[in-house]
């Protein structure tokens, strides 16, 4: 009997060991902590983590449409009855964006963004804000840019009723009316940081976890205006029986090609390489740009938004496309790893 127990025990041990080793053989995190630091010091030509290409500029080079990744949407019922208040809001919003965009205000702007909970700390904010291409577009310009963007990426492009025409008169705005605005952490919220800091009694700002919670909120009418990635807006429009409208564009492109251990100075340098992208939006944008520029490269979605910054910072992959603020986060991870050496 004892012999059989021993046999069974060794069988279990063998199973466990094989399961664990099978799992470990493909873990990126484990591999790098042993070899990552070595790579950086051994390869003489490796240039460390670099933000190599601005995909917004690359997009503009190959297309006459614009890359617009962040916007504000408004609840349609609210918009129909509050045109003047919205005109006033948009005017204040434009001022807020102009303030934050201004390079001289970067320190104040960074602090405002952090106080609003939009970015994690001032260090990240100071680097991410300039790279987030904050811009203001409304009315006809917004409609043209958005339609160009949707058509370029073959996303479903809504009809004209989707776009809010800013026809109100802000001088007629009733001072009583409260506008409730929702935002979440990330580049789509940066533009309103000054308004949040000014704390005008006309506006109430609520922070949400992300698109998942903000979308039902604006569709149900818990908030009147919400910040959202541009690619999500048409689907919200269709799925809510046309219950929302696009109010303004607040961010151009936020995507960058980042390299670690290889040198890329132009789009053509990407030919024949493998580029890692974390999710659908970066993948579609990159594919569009590469196609228009006639550059052939392999695109891999092996790592997602949580793991890719780590992976590129440690040099496990050499070329990645990341959105802000992940671009800055990856840079900080790399710098921290270098300092720890």
């Amino acid at each position: 009997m004892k012999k059989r127990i021993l046999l069974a025990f060794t069988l279990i041990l063998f199973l466990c060991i094989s399961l664990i080793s099978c799992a470990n053989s493909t873990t990126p995190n484990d591999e790098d902590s042993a070899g990552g630091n070595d790579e950086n010091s051994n390869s003489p030509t490796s240039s460390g983590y670099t933000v190599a290409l601005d995909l917004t500029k690359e997009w503009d080079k190959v297309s006459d449409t614009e890359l617009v990744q962040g916007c504000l949407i408004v609840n349609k019922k609210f918009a129909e009855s509050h045109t003047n208040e919205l005109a006033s809001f948009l005017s204040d919003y434009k001022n807020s964006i102009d303030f934050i965009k201004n390079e001289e205000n970067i320190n104040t702007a960074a602090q405002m963004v952090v106080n609003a909970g939009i970015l994690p700390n001032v260090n990240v904010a100071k680097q991410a804000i300039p790279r987030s291409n904050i811009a203001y577009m409304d009315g006809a310009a917004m409609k043209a840019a958005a339609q160009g963007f949707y058509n370029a990426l073959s996303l479903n492009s809504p009809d004209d009723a989707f776009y809010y025409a800013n026809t109100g008169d802000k001088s007629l705005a009733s001072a009583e009316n409260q506008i409730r605005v929702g935002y979440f952490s990330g580049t789509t919220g940066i533009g309103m940081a000054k308004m949040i800091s000014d704390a005008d009694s006309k506006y109430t700002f609520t922070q949400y976890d992300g698109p998942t919670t903000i979308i039902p909120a604006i569709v149900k009418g818990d908030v009147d205006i919400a910040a959202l990635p541009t690619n999500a807006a048409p689907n919200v429009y269709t799925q809510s029986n046309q219950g929302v409208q696009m109010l303004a564009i607040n961010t151009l492109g936020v995507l960058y090609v980042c390299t670690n251990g290889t040198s890329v100075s132009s789009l053509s340098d990407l030919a024949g390489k493998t580029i890692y992208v974390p999710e659908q939006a970066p993948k579609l944008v990159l594919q569009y740009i590469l196609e228009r520029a006639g550059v052939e490269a392999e695109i891999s979605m092996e790592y997602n938004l949580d793991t890719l910054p780590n992976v590129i910072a440690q040099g496990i992959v050499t070329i990645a496309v990341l959105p802000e603020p992940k671009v800055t986060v990856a840079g900080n991870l790399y710098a921290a790893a270098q300092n720890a050496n």
Partner: protein
Amino acid sequence: MKTLFYRFRKPLLLTAGALILFLLWHIAAAAFDIPLILPKPLPVLKALGQLLGTAVFWKSVGLSVLRISLGAAAGLIVGFLAGILSAASDTVRTLLSPLFSVIRATPVACFIILAWVFIGSAQLPVFIAALMVAPVMMTGTLTGLKSTDGALLEAAYLYRLTFFQRVRTCYLPALLPHATAALVNCIGLAWKAGIAAEIIVKTKDSIGYAIWDAKSWNVDSTLLFAWTLTVIFISLLFEYLFRLLLKLRKESGNVA
């Protein structure tokens, strides 16, 4: 006609029950009238029908089923062997019990996050499925073996049966009801936990990834519900298949 109704009354009643569910769903969705939050059943079924024609659907479903089945099988083997060892030796049983208690007590989501760092997105659902099955199988095997009829064992000793003959006549008949019941219980759990793991870590080419994608990129609740229906359907299919297996065992008699 009447005899037809009588013969097929169980399936007919089941279908009627399911139809009532769909009707209630439709009424709720129509009343709420925001497809983003609660889509109506017909568009969801249409979306599901469209999905069935895509290669991505079958690839994701196939790989998810494969992953979780592998994990469940591994958990089954580990749990079974641990159960046998625990039944054979009290020392082993007491040594193993803290481990299995911890596994039973920890919430699945905790395990997912903790193990993600070590195991990586691709293999995590396998591990989680194994983790769900192993403790239940161990307890089931242990209880089964412990419930062997003492008198039968004495008789076996008197007749000087070999070890294998004892296994066949005493241990196996006692073990099988408990072990199979444990298995039927935890197979649903393994499937649900495995899909949850896939959603959280976004395993590539998996049902969980498709669910996450439908929610985050497409903002498409209809698609989301369609995938959820798929998950529910496969879970029910698994349970049904295992019950069938159980019935076959019972009919053929447990004595090998």
